[in-house]
């Protein structure tokens, strides 16, 4: 694909996403159905626990920062945290928001200020310089886990293997944890050690599952649509490739296989 075509396709993709966002909002206003994400079920309980026990929630961005490769992760995390903070809003202990990227500090402070109406949030946003391999950040957050005794932790942003130190500290103190990372090593650690886990792109849809109203849930459906389209396209390409390689494979067989695979995909999607 030459450069001009690639640019045209990119522009079309962005414009199609804009159109889909508005279509999804229109459709969502009529039909409020969403697939279920298991990892998010515990959030209500943690928010209630934070209110009743007068202990804060800890929300962590990790190294997600504005102006870097993971800007979108930082923005998605902020949107997610805003709704989580709103759920715990009746409590006395303001949530702690931590980050190892200095560019996220204003975003974190703004998220906290908007979500937490009681005020007193200026010292609840905490920046810890990450140092090499983010180990310094993990050590500092482990200190917060010990000194502030949060009721639960939500790690949503960019984390590497250092997430293990923080999850281990939380686990040893019996504090719940939900984790998702846009880095693969961090995601693997989250799967192995966190109480609840979101997988990859679910970070970007998470806000839409914490709040039922508004535009956010509809936007989550756009991601589901693109993903379904991508899966269908890849399946079709795979079957066409197989049909080309295997002379005994007929077109009707390819069509039937495609239908069966699509049906199975839809079934799995509905069950989640």
């Amino acid at each position, binding site marked *: 694909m030459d*450069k*001009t075509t690639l*640019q045209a396709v990119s*522009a079309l993709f*962005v414009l199609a*996403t*804009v159109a889909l*966002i508005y279509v999804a909002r229109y459709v969502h206003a009529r039909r409020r159905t969403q697939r279920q994400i298991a990892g998010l079920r515990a959030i209500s309980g943690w928010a209630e626990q934070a209110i009743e026990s007068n202990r804060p929630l800890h929300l962590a961005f990790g190294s997600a*920062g*504005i*102006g870097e490769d993971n800007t*979108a992760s930082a*923005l*998605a995390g*902020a*949107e997610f945290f*805003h709704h989580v903070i709103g759920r715990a809003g009746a409590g006395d202990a303001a949530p702690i928001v931590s980050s190892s990227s*200095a*560019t996220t*500090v*204003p975003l974190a402070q703004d*998220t906290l200020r908007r979500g937490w109406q009681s005020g007193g949030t200026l*010292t609840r*946003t*905490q*920046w*810890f*310089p990450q*140092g*090499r*391999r983010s*180990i*310094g950040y*993990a*050590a500092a957050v482990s*200190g917060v886990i010990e*000194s502030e005794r949060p009721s639960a932790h939500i790690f949503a942003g960019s984390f590497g*293997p250092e997430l*293990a*130190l923080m*999850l*281990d500290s939380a*686990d040893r103190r019996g504090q719940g944890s939900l984790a998702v990372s*846009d880095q*693969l090593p961090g995601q693997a650690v989250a*799967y*192995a*050690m966190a*109480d609840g886990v979101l*997988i*990859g*792109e679910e970070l*970007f849809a998470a806000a839409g599952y914490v709040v039922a109203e508004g*535009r956010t849930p509809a*936007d989550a459906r*756009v*991601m589901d649509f*693109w*993903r379904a389209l*991508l899966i269908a396209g890849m399946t079709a390409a795979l079957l066409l490739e197989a049909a080309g390689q295997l002379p005994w494979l007929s077109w009707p067989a390819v069509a039937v296989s495609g239908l069966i695979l699509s049906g199975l995909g839809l079934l799995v999607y509905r069950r989640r």
Partner: protein
Amino acid sequence: MGRGAGIGAIMSAIIAFAVGVTVMFSLLLGDNPALFGDLPDADELARRFALPADVLLRLVVIVVALSIVIGIANLLFVHVSRLTSGKFYSAVLLASFGFTIYWYVTRQGDTSLLEAVQLPIESALAALLFLSLALGGARVMGKRRDIWGLLFVAVVVVVLLASLPLAELAPLRAWSDWLMRVPVSAGARAMLLGIALGMVVAGVRALLGQDRAFRG
């Protein structure tokens, strides 16, 4: 939301939209003179279209560099406020901060303090990280009692055993290589594709000025 906050949110959304669209089209049009066909000054046109994105992205670099000052201010403010409640570690942090700056200034940029203190501590923590990871792997079956948890542990065991330098375990190496090359690679790519899709939607929301950060 008050009237002032409402106007602020609208202004933020307008600025975000204008900057986002400008950068997007500037990057799309400015980087490819072929888009201007046979026009005699196609290169010059492409250069002019590229200018807004270039200027705005340079501004981003400056703002990002300045944000470290915000970070340090935050660090100091948080720990000074914690001093009043008698937090010992905050006092240690503030004293270390002052001493490190004094050392750096008086010794003309000497970083030996960093190398003698910070690096060994980080290395020790990295070793601790290995133990945490091993412990986490062992706890998987406690947290995820399902087929996927079992599969996770089985794969970890196969890969770890295959990495041992024992001749008896040579057959496992082929399994381990296949696991890393096919299912692990496929899963990683699928996750990266999903993350990329999520980033596009989050980016478009920011471009439309509808992200929480711009809504007031």
